[in-house]
């Protein structure tokens, strides 16, 4: 099986060929030029022990939604996005069509909306506080990314929001 692996935050793509050779052993070819022989075993639920010429590695794998796996190796969590070549081609055709919406103020953490400081239609300056969110006793102030007008306010006070939720949309000035 051939996978295209990318790691969160790094745009570089790696082509990884995994060829089972029996007895839990795999030949792995990276980017067509580096070849490894790995002995891979699962311990309990989702811990993996990998031996490579005697070098011993412990890994954790989780996830799998949309080819996105969370891998823990040597104390470091990485997100690896893995897809097979077919899917890769499909995506490259569809890709680049979707633009990134500007002016969306989102939250990386889930939390409760403590205060909404702006209204729709209101003019705001860059760094003006828009919303205060609280989670785990910590208040987090969300500020305007640029001068502009509040296009819509997506949350109300007292409401609970998930991670990555859009809080406010700003129509940039100019």
């Amino acid at each position, binding site marked *: 099986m051939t996978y295209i692996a990318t790691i969160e935050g790094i745009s570089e793509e790696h082509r990884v060929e995994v060829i089972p050779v029996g007895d839990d052993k795999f030949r792995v070819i990276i980017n067509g030029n580096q070849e490894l022989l790995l002995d891979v075993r699962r311990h309990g639920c989702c811990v993996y022990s990998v031996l490579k010429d005697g070098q011993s590695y412990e890994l954790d794998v989780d996830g799998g939604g*949309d080819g996105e796996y969370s891998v823990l190796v040597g104390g470091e969590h990485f997100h690896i996005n893995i897809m097979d070549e077919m899917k890769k081609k499909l995506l490259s055709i569809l890709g680049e069509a979707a633009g990134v919406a500007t002016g969306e103020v989102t939250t990386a953490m889930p939390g409760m909306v403590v205060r909404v400081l702006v209204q729709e239609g209101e003019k705001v300056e860059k760094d003006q506080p828009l919303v205060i969110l609280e989670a785990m006793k910590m208040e987090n102030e969300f500020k305007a990314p640029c001068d502009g007008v509040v296009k819509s306010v997506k949350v109300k006070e007292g409401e609970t929001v998930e991670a990555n939720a859009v809080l406010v949309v700003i129509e940039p000035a100019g």
Partner: protein
Amino acid sequence: MFRKILVANRSEIAVRILRACREMGITSATVYSDVDRDALHVRYADEAYYVGPSPARESYLNIERIIETAKKAGCEAIHPGYGFLAENAEFAARCQEEGIVFIGPPKEAIVAMGSKTVARRTARAAGAPVIPGTLEPLSDEEIVTKAREIGYPVMLKAVSGGGGKGMRLVENESEMASAIRMARSEAKSAFNDDSLYLEKYIENPRHVEMQILVDKEGRGVYLGERECSIQRRHQKVIEESPSVLMTEGLRREMGEVALKVARAAGYYSAGTVEFLMDANRRFYFLEVNTRLQVEHPVTEMVTGVDIVKEMIRIAAGGDLSISQDDVQMRGHAIECRIYAEDPFNNFLPSPGTIIGMRLPDGPGVRVDRGVFEGAVVPMEYDPIIGKLIVWGRDRVEAVERARRALSEFVIKGIKTTIPFHVRVMENPLFLSGDFDTTFIDTVFKKMEGERVPRLMDIALGTVAVHKYLEDVAPKTASPVQVHAESPWRLYGRKLQLRTGLW
């Protein structure tokens, strides 16, 4: 001794106190909110009672409900842990009225020390050096005026503060308005008191605190210091004992000042007197925490004294079991707080479900925790889910142990501070002891970019994912079509395919 104690708290500190009860042969009861029915402390206690909805003020902060629960369950005493009602004088008073022993200091001492401005006056009267600043709560206008007098940078602090809540470093006047608003809002929601006061900001400050134990007869000992300079948002993340700055003479001096302040306030129980120390080892009284501290285990590991059990004995009217001569500090202990936070994204909260967990063990390692594999970490409460505490014969061995233990510590499903601690335990400034409370903002932030995965990691990750799909996912599916929620489910599915039983 008490026959039954109510532990009016949750998470790791509730479990810590429940363990002390179990060891002492005292029946334990605890309380829980809606979201905490499946929390570890509920399962661990001998008895557990529902006290209300998830928001703390409707459950863990609901004084009358907790008093009522203690009475119904026949508890003779209540241990409040830290946070919630631990430093609430009204609660201590209500306990007293109902004939329930509050396992902590007398309410008068909580009032005196709880008000940071009264505490500063008491400490100054007891001869303790205090940081230049105001001794009274201030209005917004007074703050601005006073700050000019003292000179920037200044620290804005909540009069009823604790745990870094309602606290802001203000570098210059242009930041002041926003800082006041945020600090008052945080203080209001944390302590229901938005009054603020002002202190001179000590440059390159180190946070050094003294653990004390005083019984009801006034016999007191100090159990040595803890250095807690590694902080984010003015909240401790790493603590150690002893402090690399400390000398035997300085320890005696600070210990005696700490006991003097406690006596001046009529204090008994366990308590912590916090100091700031500048680069010249000048120390200034900061505040008294009239409760068990999160970081008490480092002191337990170097002194061998179980602080929670001593608190319980003192509350029951017992004599302090040790004299100052019995207090021998041995070796070095370091605590790494495990927060449900993303250290690579400004320590933002990361509540959620712990889908996998492996804890370190072996020599010199202690883990206190409030979670388990499968536990949900709710967004309603403090982000602390556990603590790793290590002991070594000296600081070098303690750091080596910490590194080793951290390498074994796995929590999956939520982000935690584990990778942060790994970096600190390898940082040359931390290792040399050359750090202060600005460490995270100045030193750690620069390390964030250092996460460069090697090609080997990609190979290992990909082959493990391949095996994962082979082992636990349907063979026919493309890897990108697998929608996993739980590895257990995938595992179950695979076994089903293999055995053909279903």
